[in-house]
C-alpha cells in the first residue's frame, strides 16, 4: 500500500501491535458513532415509535456497558489523577460521570416502564409515574450531555474521521 520509504507516523510499517491499536481505534470510533446515532434515534420517539424506541434503548444499554468497559483504563487513570492540578481532564471526567449516571437511570427506568419490549418477552412490570418522570428527566439530561461528551473529544473524532476517509492534509488523493 505504501510505496517508498516512510514519510510520517501514518506511513510507518504496520506491525502486529500497531495493527491491534488501529483495530481498537476503529472499534472505538464506530462504536461511539453507533451509540450517538442510536441515542439520537431513541430520543426521537415520534419518529421511531414505541417498539423501536424500547429495543433501541435496551441495545444502547448493552453497548454502553461495552463502551465503558473498553475505556475502563482511562476511568481508573483519571480517577487516580483527580486530586492533581489540571482542569480539563477533571471536567471531562465529571461530564462522563454525570452521563453514566443519567444514561444508566434513563435505560433502567425505561426498562421499568416498558410497554412493548418486555411484554414481548413475557415480562410484565408494574410501571409507575415516578419512573416515567425519571425517564423523561434523565433522557433530556442525557440529550444535553451526549453532544458535550462527544464535542470534548472533537479533535480525536475529526482526526479519526479524516483517517477513515483517507484524507491527509497536504496530500492530494
Amino acid at each position, binding site marked *: 500500500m505504501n510505496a517508498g520509504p516512510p514519510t510520517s507516523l501514518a506511513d510507518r510499517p504496520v506491525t502486529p501491535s500497531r495493527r491491534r491499536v488501529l483495530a481498537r481505534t476503529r472499534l472505538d470510533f464506530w462504536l461511539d458513532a453507533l451509540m*450517538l446515532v442510536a441515542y*439520537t*434515534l431513541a*430520543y*426521537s*420517539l*415520534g*419518529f*421511531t*415509535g*414505541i*417498539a*423501536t*424506541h424500547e429495543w433501541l434503548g435496551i441495545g444502547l444499554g448493552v453497548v454502553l*456497558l*461495552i463502551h*465503558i*468497559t*473498553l475505556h*475502563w*483504563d482511562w476511568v481508573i487513570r483519571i480517577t487516580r489523577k483527580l486530586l492533581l492540578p489540571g482542569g480539563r481532564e477533571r471536567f471531562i471526567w465529571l461530564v462522563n460521570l454525570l452521563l*453514566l*449516571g443519567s444514561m*444508566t*437511570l434513563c435505560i*433502567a*427506568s425505561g426498562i421499568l416502564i416498558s410497554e412493548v419490549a418486555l411484554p414481548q418477552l413475557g415480562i410484565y412490570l*408494574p410501571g*409507575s*409515574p*415516578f*419512573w*416515567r*418522570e*425519571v*425517564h*423523561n*428527566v434523565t*433522557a*433530556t*439530561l442525557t*440529550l*444535553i450531555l*451526549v*453532544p*458535550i461528551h*462527544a*464535542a*470534548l473529544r*472533537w479533535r480525536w473524532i475529526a482526526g479519526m474521521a479524516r483517517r477513515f476517509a483517507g484524507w491527509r492534509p497536504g496530500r492530494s488523493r
Partner: protein
Amino acid sequence: MKFLRHLAAVVFVVAVIVTLGMLWAHVSGGVDTGLGPMRVPSGKAFGPIRANLIGARPGDGFHLDDTRNLIRTCEIEAVLAAVVITVSAIRRRERRLRRAAAERYM
C-alpha cells in the same frame, strides 16, 4: 480476561447507580407501595426540550412521514456540540497565544 475483569467492574458501578435510583424511589415514596402518596421528580426545567418524549406513537417501525422529532433532536445535539467546540477552540487558541507570548519574553 482483562476485558471480563473490566466488564465486571462496570457492571458493579452500573448496579450501584441503579440501586441508588431504587433507594431514591423508595425514600421519596415514588414507587407505589400503598404506604402513602407518590411524589415524582420534577422535570419542569426541561419543558421545551422534552416535548420530543411526549406524543409517542404506537406501533412498530419508523414513522418516516414524521421526521420533525428526529430533526429537532439533531438540531439540539448540533447546537450543543457547536458551542462546546467553539469554546474549546477559543480556549485552545488563547493558551497557544499565551504560550507564544511567554516564549517571546524568555
